């Protein structure tokens, strides 16, 4: 199993969620994060003073998937999250050794 970690633009969350459900992925966990990267933060000006905001709001999605689904999931995310602009985000894939569904105790791919 893999844990796919995608950092995307907040406004794409719903599209990504839909794209994933379309290919049969029914679970994911999202969180609000702050990203630092090529898409530079911005300056806010209050009363004539500049305030540097280094981090940009992003959403991180974590999706545990069976190995065979990983590729398609990545593709789906790319398609749904891409706007072609700097700051579209990243997808990272981590190996995952085990998964358990707390309610039933099922494990492995069945737990997802």
């Amino acid at each position, binding site marked *: 199993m893999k844990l796919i970690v995608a950092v995307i633009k907040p406004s794409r969350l719903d599209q990504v969620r839909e794209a994933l459900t379309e290919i049969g992925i029914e679970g994911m966990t999202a969180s609000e994060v702050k990203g630092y990267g090529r898409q530079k933060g911005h300056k*806010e*000006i*209050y*009363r*004539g*003073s500049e*305030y*540097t*905001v280094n981090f940009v709001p992003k959403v991180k999605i974590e999706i545990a998937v069976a190995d065979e689904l990983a590729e398609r999931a990545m593709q789906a995310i790319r398609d749904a999250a891409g706007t072609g602009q700097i700051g579209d985000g990243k997808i990272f894939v981590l190996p995952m050794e085990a998964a358990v569904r707390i309610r039933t105790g099922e494990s492995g791919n069945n737990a997802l």
Partner: protein
Amino acid sequence: MRAILKCGSLMGPAGLVFMAGTPAFAQEGGVLNGANTAWILTSTALVLFMTLPGLALFYGGLVHTRNVLSVLMHCFAVACLASVLWLAFLYSFAFGDGGSANAFFGGFGKIFLAGVAADSLWGDIPETVFFMFQMTFAIITPALIVGAFVERMKFSAVLWFSTLWLIVVYAPAAHWIWGGGMLSDGGLLGMGVRDFAGGIVVHVTAGTSALVAAVMVGKRRGFPGEITPPHSPVLTMMGAAMLWVGWFGFNAGSALTSDGAAGMAMTVTHISAATASLVWMGLEWLRYGKPSLIGIVTGMVAGLATVTPASGFVGPLGGFVCGLAGGAICFFATPWVKHRLGIDDSLDVFAVHGMGGMTGTMMTAIFAVPALGGLGLAEGASIGDHLFVQAAGIVIVALWSVVISFVILKAIDLTIGLRVSPEVETEGLDITTHGERGYSL
């Protein structure tokens, strides 16, 4: 028949009563006017509302989340302190009769409201009501200064500073100008400084003292590069709106009457606020490309501070020009203090209140002219005479504020210390000093 009569210290802070030609307006000694009383009771509530929660929220939204409670706490504790001190002796020092020293000091006669009963009058309203109304001014003035040293000053130092400052700066200044002292009619400058609702007594004292405090307490860590944006413009806007509404009590209440004087003061106050808001918004839009909420509400405060001294003397045109001038001057003064002077007057107390108060005080001399819609100059005086007196008033009070604030802060620094440790500053005052966090969402 329209006439401006200068009234003795008996007649209150505004020093001015607008007289209409009918018996309903006649001020006879010793007769209570219920309508005026109703309006000043209301105004008292409005001005308290300006500080609690108005100013507290306005300031609280501008700082980092980790210090929001400390700002609210500063405003709240200072308000309580000022109230008790006002009863204890500040009221006497400001509005008592100082006898031979009256030019400087109001004396001890009214300590703890000695001799003031429920039926004692001040002009034609109960003296308790006058006492309360004026108390709310003594509450907001030191609370304004808080903006200069947020996020780094020790809480105990804040309390000591506010206490000493109220005694040695505020009470005398109020006495000099409103309490029959040396800057009022017949005093040092002859015809008296005109400060309807506190351009000098409130805004110049607070603004200049804030500048001194900002210098003495020192810059926030990381100023200017690493300071974070206001944590909640929502809170700031909320507080700003409350300031606006409350300011009706501040300025129109300073008429001490429920009549056209109050009505005109409210009108010019509102016009100045609205105009300065738009001026600030426009300048920001032009200069930085984006009209911001923080910007428009800062403009509003600038407009209100500017019109405060003028509000009982000028007409709609005066209010409008106060808004234009106050909005523009404070807009440019703000980054100038922070970046040119390099002073971390964190929430811009001097640039907004100090500069606004001074601007309005000078404009009072000009726009009081009937030809400009004003309610008139002092008998026999020219605009030039008034300009001189107003300027002299500003200089005297500003110098006094600066020198005394310096001395008080120096003394505190040498004893209990002014500033929290760097660790505490990094961690935030809320959790370290007050043991609480602003939000646990």
